[in-house]
């Protein structure tokens, strides 16, 4: 029974994916129920300790530590909601449904894995299965997004593999806790940690490596985007939390870089997001920004080893909050795209407004709790380093508010039941509203459930008045520029005329794409020349047919040799030579 509890979360989705074509109409419920065992495991925990699975992969070990349990609950819940809203898509594209299930298995597996190998297997499994989701629509933009996604995913995986190999060798075992522990004293530690940060950074959307995110998330269908931004992005965070030696050793250097990159990400996400015209790209940039904040939390953990547990909790809390809020926003966009009329549009706006407020960290919302815990950890920075950091966090919150207003602006008109074939959600919105509604409720209530889920969470809940004000002023600050913009916004037509956003999605990527040909074209040319050269060289191998000239020489020489006169001369010569050799040679 205990083994079943541990294995079912991963096994059920995989079984579902493999049996999808076989299972009859009931399969529509499979998408929804697949994550259920994971949810139950997360909420109620398993009856016994994790079973020994040394026949699986390379002595797989499963475990559920404190940090990843809430994440497991959030992931499972979001997967169920996404599954529910993706049921209709699943019907006409079985491949999409099985890929969704496979990715779910990977996502859940990452949270459960406790040894380096299984973790890496699940991580890679999730990444490459998600590729199928990204390119589901098969449009040219989806293919380009898929290409960028795969290239960065492969680079990330390769860096990760190298880092894990080096770490595991030093630790001598593959169990993650020991590996993280021994990392502190590993020779060449900085290279290993650099590789790990880079490897997971690709998935988390760390600034220079985030370029795939604004392309891939919008390209996928809404249900997939919700999961991509909601839960899968957190897998990278889990990797950091489990493998980096948080709490064992102070790594000021790496800590500072993480904090720095996190903040840059937060700002870039907000700036680029607001300039977007497609709500899904805007939300993707919002994910980059929010994950930037979480990265600062991890950075704090690295800088202050003794506050590491608080930093981890802050990061987890923030991740859970962001997961649910972002998923609800993506699903909301999905509902909007599916077409809403009259009262359903108004409820949609209300719900998305609630999620937006949560994301901005307005008081009494989950976002507020998460931000406050993050600020409290920041305050613990020595010699007053905390002040500028908390200020930056508040400014980021203001930025997010601006972003959310922009989102609501983009979604403000009811988009009637357009029957464009391309719309990824069915014409009638019935199937999508119910799951969306449930997740909005979760956003409202979730924040308060957090302490219950994690019994020994430090009592950081800032229910003081200063905390309330601390949450409110950034939101107000954010609303000021929006009001100004609403009042004096330029002519409506101009806004609509230039659909291309100032910063196209995948900002840095365009730079790279322009530079890349300068390198790839000569490389390709060189390889082709080398190939051709070898093919020409092969003619040398045809000894017989190389050129006529040497052949003729041999024939000519042979003819002379077998002529009587030359043969006669040679015969006499050899006779003399042999005789002389016999005469003077030593016996």
């Amino acid at each position, binding site marked *: 029974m205990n083994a079943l509890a541990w294995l079912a979360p991963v096994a059920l989705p995989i079984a579902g994916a493999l049996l999808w074509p076989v299972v009859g109409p009931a399969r529509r419920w499979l998408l929804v129920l697949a994550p259920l065992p994971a949810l139950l495991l997360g909420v109620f925990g398993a009856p016994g300790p994790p079973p020994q699975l040394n*026949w*699986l992969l390379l002595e797989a070990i499963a475990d559920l530590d404190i940090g990843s349990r809430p994440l497991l609950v959030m992931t499972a819940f979001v997967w169920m909601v996404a599954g529910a809203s993706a049921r209709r898509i699943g019907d006409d594209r079985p491949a999409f449904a099985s890929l969704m299930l496979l990715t779910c298995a990977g996502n859940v597996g990452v949270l459960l894995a406790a040894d380096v190998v299984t973790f890496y297997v699940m991580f*890679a499994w999730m990444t490459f299965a998600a590729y199928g989701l990204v*390119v589901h629509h*098969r449009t040219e933009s989806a293919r380009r997004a898929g290409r960028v996604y795969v290239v960065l995913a492969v680079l990330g995986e*390769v860096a990760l593999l190298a880092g894990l190999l080096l770490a595991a060798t030093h630790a001598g075992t593959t169990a993650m806790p020991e590996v993280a522990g021994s990392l502190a004293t590993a020779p060449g530690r900085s290279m290993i940690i650099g590789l790990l940060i880079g490897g997971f950074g690709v998935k988390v959307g760390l600034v220079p490596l985030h370029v795939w995110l604004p392309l891939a998330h919008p390209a996928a269908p809404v249900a997939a985007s919700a999961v991509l931004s909601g839960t899968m992005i957190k897998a990278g965070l889990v990797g950091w939390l489990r493998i980096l030696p948080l709490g064992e050793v102070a790594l000021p250097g790496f800590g500072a870089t993480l904090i720095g990159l996190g903040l840059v990400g937060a700002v870039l996400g907000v700036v680029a997001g607001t300039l977007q015209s497609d709500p899904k790209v805007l939300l993707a940039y919002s994910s980059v920004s929010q994950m930037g904040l979480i990265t600062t939390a991890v950075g704090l953990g690295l800088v202050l080893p003794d506050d590491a547990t608080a930093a981890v909790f802050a990061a987890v809390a923030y991740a859970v909050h962001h997961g649910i809020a972002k998923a609800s926003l993506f699903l909301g966009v999905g509902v909007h795209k599916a077409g809403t009329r009259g009262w359903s549009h108004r409820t949609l706006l209300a719900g998305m407004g609630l999620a937006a407020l949560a994301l901005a960290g307005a008081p009494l919302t989950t976002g507020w709790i998460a931000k406050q815990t993050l600020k409290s950890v920041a305050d613990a920075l020595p010699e007053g380093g905390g002040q500028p950091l908390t200020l930056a966090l508040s400014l980021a919150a203001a930025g997010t508010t601006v972003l959310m207003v922009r989102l609501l602006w983009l979604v403000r008109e009811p988009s009637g039941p357009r029957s464009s074939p391309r719309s990824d959600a069915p014409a009638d919105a019935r199937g999508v509203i119910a799951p969306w509604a449930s997740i909005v409720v979760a956003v409202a209530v979730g924040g308060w459930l957090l302490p219950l889920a994690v019994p020994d969470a430090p009592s950081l809940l800032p229910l003081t008045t200063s905390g309330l004000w601390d949450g409110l002023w950034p939101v107000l600050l954010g609303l000021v520029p929006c009001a100004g913009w609403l009042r004096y916004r330029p002519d409506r037509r101009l806004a609509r005329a230039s659909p291309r956003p100032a910063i196209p999605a995948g900002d840095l990527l365009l730079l790279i794409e322009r530079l890349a040909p300068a390198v790839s074209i000569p490389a390709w040319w060189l*390889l*082709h020349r080398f190939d051709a050269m070898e093919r020409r060289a*092969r003619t040398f*191998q045809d000894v017989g047919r190389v050129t006529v000239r040497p052949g003729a020489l041999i024939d000519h020489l042979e003819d002379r040799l077998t002529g009587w006169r030359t043969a006669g001369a040679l015969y006499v010569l050899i006779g003399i030579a042999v005789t002389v050799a016999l005469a003077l040679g030593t016996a």
Partner: protein
Amino acid sequence: MTIGAALPVLLLATSLVPAIATFFIPERSHRLRTALNVIAAVVKVVLVGALVAGVLYFGLEFEWRAAFLPGIDLVLRADPIPLLFVFLSALLWLTTTVYAVGYLADDGHRSRFFGFFGLCVTATVGVALAGNLVTFLVFYELLTVTTYPLVVHDGTAKARAGGRAYLLYTLTGGALLLLGTVWLHALAGPLEFGQTEVVGALAVNHRTTLTIVFVILIVALGFKAALVPLHGWLPQAMVAPAPVSALLHAVAVVKAGAYGIVRVVHDLFGLPLAQDLGVLMPLTIVAAITIVYGSTRALIQDDLKRRLAYSTVSQLSYIVLGISVVSLSSTTGGLVHLVHQGIMKVTLFYCAGNLGKRGVHRVSEMDGIGRRMPVTMLAFTVAAVGMVGIPPTAGFVTKWYLGLGAAEAGQPWIIGVLALSSALNAAYFLPPVARAWLPPDPGERSEPTGRALAGEPGGWLLLPPVATAVSVLGLGILAGAPLSPLTWAAFIAEELMPS
């Protein structure tokens, strides 16, 4: 002739006798020929199973010895390493025979084909079970000779050119191997695999000669193991029909080379002596260069089978790399890759054969083929993913162990090479898969020119790739299982490693 001696000979006979019989089966009687060959293959797998059980569980000793030259015996001995290779060749002979029956349905020379096919497998089993260097040489050369008619089976000008290149390289390799064997024999007298102390004793006053002999042997075997400068024949031998490419370039010929290097480094010279002579580091470097070179050359090959050929060149050197790095994990990695690479590459060649049957020979022609040949492309995808080393496939297990071993041996640069080659593998394996499943614009998918007939080929051609693809996943997921090649390789590595 105790049972201990009978089994190895029986193993040889199960493919030799049917092969000779097949030569005399008239071309028209397909059923008889197919039945004979498939049954022979099944019997061989059963025998190998018995052999493996005997050695691993009952610790029996299987050895057959016959006087060959005065003072030198022909020895067939079932040590653990040979079993690994025999296990692989027996299994893949079965699947490839099934595949060949389907593939050559309309070929005019099947009796000849299956005859030489059987002889080739006999030689491979002989190479695997060889107990001393002379027996190894005998079967190694027999392998070269019996595979030539297979390479030129089509009889076209291109096939002959491929055959010529193949013989030019492999016979030169054979001549060098003869030179090395004779030299070692002249120095050390009759030499059995496993008696590393004999050569060890020589090292006292013959250091330079032993190094030269080692280099000669490795270069000789390098021709078939396709180390960089000596790999020229492999891409050209791709003209052979698909089942031949599958068995030869995934199992028999190339593996004989790599397996030979394993035997020479571990069972003839012994790791400590090789390390002492300082020959292992150059071998590692050559292997590393081959890995990267093979992958880069594969990048630009548009012809699918040539791309697979260059990938074989690169993948083989994983085995050599694993062997030449002095650490437990990397030896395990090298040995297990012997099996994994075989199974993955065979799957790829089966799929390439199926695609070939449908007129798709080039990567550029693979757009949207996934829709029309889903099963073949699924198997191709699994194997391709395996070659890149993405978990949970067998390829990942090898890469993991090679990386672990490299780090253990204190040579982290090898992990860099593995990383680079994984990226390169992804660069030349994933795009074809992507093109197959996601044609550029689904709307007006350009139907490939009329030649490509729709639909999957027959059952005979589908069963083998599916079976091997499933085993690629199985070997990856159940790597830790008791009887998996990995545990087996680890068991061997512990025995071999001096520490």
